[in-house]
């Protein structure tokens, strides 16, 4: 752990995080917008933006470079489509009658989901910046990146918390994404504030990376608990918990690990 990690590793981690988020968004919005019959033509936009984001960011994560301009259009496009999506989703929620305010939040377009696309764009842009800057200017990105990841994690927790509440936490494991990622986000935010990277933060972020992948397994099981199980997959993949959603935690935690490395380098460079 004494070695200063390679700069490319940090950029790769952040780009991998962006690609993971984009993958989650592509699969999730494809399912959910298919369920909504692509009633509004704009519902294909997140698929396009996330698809491009995967290509660009996965390439960057593996050390390839499709070029600066395609990168910028991908990242800015993701952020733009995500922001527009937030507006559409808010409209979808607010146009319904909502006794006590909850039915729309439970069953209308998910309030926070498009934000994942914004985060993917932000992380992709950050990865590009890391690659472009001279070495001595990169460490400064650690703090803002850590804050982005911490806030993103907490937003994802809020979404999971709301939807798991809708499911009445009928399975105790549904508490996991409500308990673990906030600890990781808090530790990361604390490290950003103090400017030093704690080993515990790295463990918590690593666990959150794993949690997002384990969550896919839980959601696959959740789909099976609907009438007809996976034999009736065409209906139940839409009725059950969203299988592609949990890796949003993985993506943000990967980028958070990148931020942690930058914080550590900064400490080493500046003492």
């Amino acid at each position, binding site marked *: 752990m004494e070695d200063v990690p390679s700069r490319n590793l940090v950029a790769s981690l952040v780009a991998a995080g962006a690609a993971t988020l984009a993958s989650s968004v592509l699969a999730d919005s494809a399912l959910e917008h298919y369920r909504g019959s692509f009633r509004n033509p704009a519902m294909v936009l997140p698929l396009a933006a996330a698809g491009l984001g995967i290509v660009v960011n996965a390439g960057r994560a593996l050390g390839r470079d499709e070029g600066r301009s395609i990168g910028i259009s991908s990242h800015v496009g993701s952020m733009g489509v995500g922001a527009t999506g937030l507006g559409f989703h808010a409209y979808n929620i607010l146009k319904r009658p909502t*006794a*006590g305010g*909850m*039915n729309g939040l439970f069953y209308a377009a998910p309030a926070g989901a498009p934000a994942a696309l914004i985060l993917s764009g932000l992380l992709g842009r950050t990865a590009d910046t890391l690659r472009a800057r001279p070495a001595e200017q990169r460490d400064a990105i650690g703090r803002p990146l850590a804050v982005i990841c911490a806030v993103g994690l907490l937003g994802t927790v809020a979404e999971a918390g709301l939807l798991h509440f*809708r499911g009445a936490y009928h399975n105790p494991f549904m508490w996991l994404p409500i308990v673990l990622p906030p600890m990781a986000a808090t530790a990361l935010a604390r490290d950003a504030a103090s400017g030093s990277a704690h080993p515990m933060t790295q463990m918590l972020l690593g666990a959150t990376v794993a949690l997002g992948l384990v969550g896919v397994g839980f959601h696959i099981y*959740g789909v099976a*608990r609907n*009438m007809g199980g996976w034999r009736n997959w065409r209906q139940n993949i839409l009725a059950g918990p969203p299988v592609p959603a949990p890796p949003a935690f993985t993506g943000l935690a990967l980028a958070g690990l990148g931020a942690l490395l930058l914080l550590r380098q900064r400490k080493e460079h500046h003492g």
Partner: protein
Amino acid sequence: MRSYSETEAVDFVIVGTGAGGGTLAARLAEAGFSVIAMDAGPYWRPLEDFASDETHQEKLYWTDERIVDGEHPIKLGSNNSGKSVGGSTVHFAMVSLRFRPEHFKARTKLGYGADWPVDWREMWRYYAEVEDALKIAGPVRYPWGPHRGRYPYRAHPLNAAAEYLARGAEALGIDWTETPLATLSAPRGKAHPCVYRGFCVTGCSTNAKQSVLVTWLPRALAAGAEIRDLAMVGQIETKNGRVTGVQYHREGEWRFQPARNVIVAGYAIETPRLLLNSANGEFPNGLANSSGLVGKNLMVQLNQAVWGIVEDEVRSYKGPPSLAISEHWNYEDRGKDYFGGWSYMSQGPLPITWARTLSGGRGLWGQALIDEMARVNHSVGLKMVGEVLPDERNRVTLADECDQYGLRIPRVTFAFRDNEKAMIRHALDFMDQSLAATGATERWQESDDTCHLNGTARMGNDPATSVVNSDCRSWDIPNLWICDGSIFPTVGGVNPSLTIQAMACRTADRILLANHEAS
């Protein structure tokens, strides 16, 4: 399933396995008593036995011979009967509401009807127990009445019919909410969440509906109770002022099951019928009838509706039929020229029911009926559940005719009085305003429907004016109990099943306490 012999007395024979009897079977068996719960109907397995077919599913109803008369004869058979293990909860609309607290003291607090001999706070605790046992899916915040704990499961999504109720209520400035329903909004054990098939009131074929059949009865079986289906109890026998067991008809013959206690839970027609048919030398006017009130004070609930046509496609038959509710007029006493309360809910009639409504309720026939049926996807309606006041002239008596078992059949006599007529006027007018506010046109009123049956063996504090005491125990015969909708002194403006189950839980606890004190 454990089975008991007819040579030895069991602790309890329960007559009926619905909201009252099924709940008691579970609670008493879990307390260690030997229990046989008998039902005249069969023990269905919904996954195999239920079809998405209204006509076929009429097998769930009690359609034995009966006589209905009076100024407003009650239509019997669907929404007020059940001949299945699990009773009418097998096909109920799953609406699971608590009484307004003041409605337990209607005489003292509101000046009409009769008081219940129980405290609402005690009932509140039993409501919570039943809501948890049924994993009721309800709103996060309930707009009316004192604080209640969080419903165990979250409310279901609203269908378009429910949204019409919501928009109407908001336009009229009153509260509405998602109806607390006994169907799963998330998995529970082996049960899947509701698939919104919409055939709820003809029997749920997925077991998402948390009826007595899939909630209390599995618990009863696990605790060693026997459910004896296709067993029609015809007479309760007595000796020296105590019941000794029941005569019942099964597999073509009359049999006798001895019991140390008998609980009657046959709903508000079959319960008084059995008590009256059990008249003997010791009790010539029927069992538990020293007050003369067995069979009297029959209360249905008002089930009038307003329907209309809207431009949007509603498809109101999607999902559970009553996803949204307003209890405003249960909790608001001002602005009424009548006693009592009512709630109203969104509606989702199935095709045959809708054709019956249009032909019987609206008088459409032939091409006019066909044309109107073709617009079903644009039809939307609101339907009330309204309080009927107790009146001794509304009653169940025995006719001279006999049924297939050779038992005298019930005669059900009923009439609306001025109070009911005033409530119907107000409710129809209000629901019409609500529909109008949402843009529904061609509105019409279905003015003669009723639902639920209650009140023919009322509970009370005085043996002269009630059939059972606050423990649901007969004043006359110490080892005879009645626990179903019959014991209701008043019905309130909410569907009765949750209250029946809560009362059954309370009765079980009272039996345990009495047993503990005796030993």
